[in-house]
């Protein structure tokens, strides 16, 4: 967890998910499964032991028919910058064996499967339930092992895993850029599998620090919000919604509180 302050070109890769565009189709989940060698079991209906690096939640406004509204909410790992925005994410700081780390070059929170010994402290620390435990050994029936990607190592039983923002794609893109003697990656050179898989283009991915990237502008929209901002986890996944109730559902508010004002206060504070 050594912080490097001298990183001139430090990136903060992040995501903006337009909930008004998300149809809940699940392509992001499936795209992620196949990109990241996510295993599957015969029964995946217990969502609390089902490995999903990005999970689409279905939320409703709670109003009775016919005023009911539904919103789908895809949740990858939020890649929190943590309190004070310097990498003190809830999970990284608690891992006893440095099996998860904050990369100051990209802002991505890594997970080292061969280092993790499965204490699950990081899972207890993560309010987003982004971290999943391998309760079972993964099994790929018939010839399914043949579709596994060599870019992501399959995990073994007993370790925690989570969304990596497809870090292997970053590495491949960076290697290519290096080979071509370029310093900077182009915006479209490094995209996550879910962003690419989203058939409605609801997921935008890029460097939140880079003014030329789409996410930079999108995150400043008045309709943008992050999940559980009040916990000061500083997630790098932003959401857009033109529905007030959706924006309110993204965090906890006391009855009298107005999300926009609270958000302002929280963001001023740090």
């Amino acid at each position, binding site marked *: 967890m050594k912080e490097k302050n001298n990183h001139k070109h430090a990136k903060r890769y992040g995501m903006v998910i337009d909930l008004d565009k998300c149809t809940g189709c699940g392509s992001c989940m499936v795209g992620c499964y196949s990109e990241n060698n996510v295993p599957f079991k015969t029964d995946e209906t217990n969502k609390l032991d089902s490995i999903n690096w990005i999970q689409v939640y279905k939320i409703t406004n709670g109003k009775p028919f016919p005023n009911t509204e539904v919103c789908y909410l895809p949740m990858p790992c939020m890649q929190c910058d943590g309190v004070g925005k310097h990498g003190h994410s809830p999970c990284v700081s608690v891992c006893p064996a*440095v099996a998860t780390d904050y990369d100051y070059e990209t802002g991505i929170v890594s997970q080292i499967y061969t280092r*993790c010994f499965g204490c699950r402290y990081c899972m207890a*620390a993560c*309010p987003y339930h982004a971290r999943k435990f391998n309760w079972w050994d993964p099994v790929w029936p018939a010839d399914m092992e043949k579709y596994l990607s060599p870019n992501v190592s399959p995990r073994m039983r007993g370790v925690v895993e989570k969304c990596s923002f497809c870090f292997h794609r970053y590495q491949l893109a960076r290697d290519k850029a290096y080979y071509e003697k370029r310093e900077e990656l182009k915006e479209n050179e490094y995209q996550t599998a879910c962003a690419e898989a989203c058939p409605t283009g609801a997921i935008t991915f890029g460097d939140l620090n880079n003014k030329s990237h789409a996410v930079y502008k999108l995150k400043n929209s008045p309709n943008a919000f992050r999940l559980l901002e009040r*916990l000061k986890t500083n997630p790098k996944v932003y959401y857009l919604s033109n529905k007030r109730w959706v924006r309110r559902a993204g965090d906890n508010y006391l009855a009298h509180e107005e999300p926009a004002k609270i958000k302002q206060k929280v963001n001023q504070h740090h």
Partner: protein
Amino acid sequence: MKETPLIPAGVKRCSTWQFSLWMTAATAVLAWGVYAMILIWWKGLNQTNMNDAYGFALWIWADLAIIAIGGGAFFSGFLTYIIGKKELKNIINFAVIIGFICYSCALLILAIDIGQPLRGWFIFWHANVHSMLTEVAFCLSCYFAVLTIEFIPLILENPKLNKKPFLHHLSHNMHGIMAIFAATGVFLSFFHQGSLGGVAGVLYGRPFAFREHIFIWPWTFFLFTWSAAACGPCFTILVTWITEKITRKKLVKQSVIQLFAKISGWMIITYIIAKTIDTVYWAFVTAPGMGFTLMDFYASPTYNIGILFAEIVLCGFIPGLILITKRGRENSFLLMTAVILAVIGVCLNRWVMVLQVMAVPVFSFNDWYTYWPSWQEVATTVLPVAYGIIVISLAHRYLPVFPQEKELNPID
């Protein structure tokens, strides 16, 4: 009665067959736990009912609870060797044994509780010094070593072993420098009890557990250390009392118990005041700052506000008040009621700090998470109890655990 050379001189012990029967029963329970343990190691944590929302569950609670109630060992050491309450020497052996049992079990449970037990040592080798769990693991192992060192001289006092000159001297010499070990133990205990408090307190993504400013450090740390020091002695008293009931003889003089109970009472009172301050600040400042009201945290049928009342009033102020009053202490019914309540109180606190933390929904659109342990989890949690019974039985039968036993139970 036939004297066996293994049994200390001048004390009376039950017959071999009685003892064997007792041990067989305890061993059967132990075997059940061991079977479950092997099953878990062999097949993995899918044998439990834990899940991604409930990554910390019964075991971590058991861990935290037995470390808290095992706190009698370090605190009696602290009182005996550092403060100089020499009377407590009459109970410290037993406190050490209980501590030894608790800590060995805590380590065992940690070894079961991890997904990759064969890599468990990474916690030491690849230590992240910022993690509370690292601190816990280090201090726990070191303090367990200290407890073992404290236990060894007692084992060596077994009449048979004591005949070996080297062992006799070793016992003697270790006794001689016990204050150093005890001091180290106290030092380590302050740290790991404290960091256990921090385990939940630093979870700033978990509004139920998280505390702010001084309420995280030193407060959460202090609360755990203090509560362990306060309630650990109660557990020592409780186990002594149970042992006395089972062996049907007085083993420790009432004055010693009274002293221990009185100190414990004051510790409980001070602890529970600190805890109340913490709760009030959390309920009225910290939680609303994150958009929660106190009642949001107690909105489930299982986790209702009664829990908070039970923890602070019923199992906090009440035992504390009983124990600090002379009349309360001297009434054996009230004394034992207080002692039991205090033990329940600290276990409840650890339960809340682990299981309720996991149960409370953090998202406005999520429901409470529920969890019910599998039999494998229960069996491995019962295992320490059987193991404790076995160790205490063996220690009591073959070692001079209670210095006052001979005096209190003269053999004519």
